[in-house]
């Protein structure tokens, strides 16, 4: 605008806000209509910003650690008593586990069972979250260069966190099980009832598509069913926490706001996640939907 006369400059300035508002609204509509349109831009921005976000997130993490240490120090006596009792209980479990492991090995040998493929994982640090009430996702400082691929499962020691939805060369986005667009096929342990764990942006996702006569009670463990081929069966997800409302709600095992490091696990199933479907293929024809597309809206 340097070369413009003052009246013209004023006119341009007057028009700038309406134009930019219109442009923003257009971006919102286009982004909703075709979610792939901005994926490459989103990935490049994420990749570019990831080193800075990594550095900037460390002081906050250090502050969090300090708060944790203080809390731990204050509760050291109760923790010790609890751990002694827990240790006694776990030693009994260890004996049971050793016995079962040896029995399991013998039975596998008898059945000539094909061993499951070895899983590989990488540990990644969380460097950003979605910061708002409408999306539940995390950004991790690991990407294609580290072997992260779309569709891989993100877990912690406690259970499932989500799955990789976008991958850049240095950073990746994890869509959490609580996100509005998350759908995870699960099974209720014990009764073996199958259901779909549906996120709705609340802290507790819903259990949908249960059988009409399904008997669900608070405290039932929910694990992945392996249907759809995205997650392996048996990954712990959470426990049934409430039965009010239209569908039972599940409290995830993982406190999703507090995840600092998570494991991105390659179960060799990542190819099971369908590729996103562009609204219009490059040639101008409508793309054919792929099987299981409801699992990968984003």
């Amino acid at each position, binding site marked *: 605008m340097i070369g413009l006369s003052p009246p013209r400059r004023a006119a341009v300035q007057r028009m*700038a*806000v309406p134009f*930019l*508002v219109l*442009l*923003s*609204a*257009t*971006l*919102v509509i286009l*982004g*909703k209509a075709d979610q792939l349109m*901005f994926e490459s*831009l*989103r990935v490049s*921005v*994420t990749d570019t*910003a990831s080193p*800075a*976000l990594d550095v*900037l*997130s460390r002081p*906050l*993490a250090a502050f*969090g650690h300090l708060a944790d240490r203080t809390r731990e120090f204050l509760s050291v006596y109760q923790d010790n008593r609890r751990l002694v009792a827990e240790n006694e209980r776990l030693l009994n479990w260890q004996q049971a586990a050793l016995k079962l492991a040896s029995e399991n090995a013998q039975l596998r040998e008898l059945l000539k069972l094909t061993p499951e493929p070895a899983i590989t994982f990488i540990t990644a640090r*969380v*460097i*950003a*979250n*979605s*910061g*708002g*009430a*409408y*999306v*539940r*996702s*995390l*950004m991790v400082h690991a990407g294609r260069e580290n072997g992260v691929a779309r569709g891989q499962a993100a877990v912690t020691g406690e259970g499932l966190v989500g799955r990789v939805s*976008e991958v850049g060369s240095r950073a990746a*986005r994890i*869509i959490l099980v609580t996100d*509005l667009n998350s759908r995870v096929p699960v099974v209720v342990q014990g009764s073996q009832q199958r259901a779909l764990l549906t996120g*709705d*942006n*609340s*802290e507790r996702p819903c259990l949908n598509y249960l059988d009409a006569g399904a008997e669900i009670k608070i405290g039932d463990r929910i694990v992945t069913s392996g249907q759809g081929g995205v997650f392996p069966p048996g990954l712990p997800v959470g426990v049934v926490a409430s039965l009010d409302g239209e569908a039972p709600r599940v409290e995830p095992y993982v*406190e*999703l*706001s*507090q*995840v*600092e490091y998570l494991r991105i696990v390659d179960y060799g199933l990542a190819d099971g996640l369908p590729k996103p479907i562009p609204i219009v293929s490059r040639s101008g024809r409508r793309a054919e939907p792929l099987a299981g597309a409801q699992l990968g809206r984003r």
Partner: protein
Amino acid sequence: MVFKVDTTPALQRVENPVARLLPIATTLFATVISIQPAHIPGYAALTPAFTLMAVYHWTIYRPDLLPPSVLFLVGVTQDLLAGVPPGVTALVLLLARAAVLPHRRHFVDRLFPFVWTGFTMLTIGAMLFLWTLHCLLDGVLVDFRGTVFRAVLTISMFPIASFLLGRTQRTFMGAG
């Protein structure tokens, strides 16, 4: 404690290049803070709208140094980093600026409670707008409680942000 920033309605020219970049730098910083994982239970969903605080402050005190084009870029960047539909934050920030700018003279040189009331009204409007937009985009009635808590947290945090922004402004730009 009285939070009051000594600025005059007439915008004095700022020669120092660092000071000229201050509104953009602090708004960008607010964007980064908005997406920082705080490791506090439930925080991610209720993160205060720090960028809105910065935009409100600078629209009142130095709108000339935070042009709409920068707001657009900052908003889109925040959307891309946060994983929300691009354009949503840009739209909110631009509309917030458009709503505050005609009234900025009423807020300059006023006691903090008055400025805070203005921000409260802006936040309520912005949060209602965001909620409606996401309901339309997602095609479902999004739980309104999260929006209410986020608005309350944003309004409660504003005095701290305003104090810090005011101090930074005075340090780099002087009283004007």
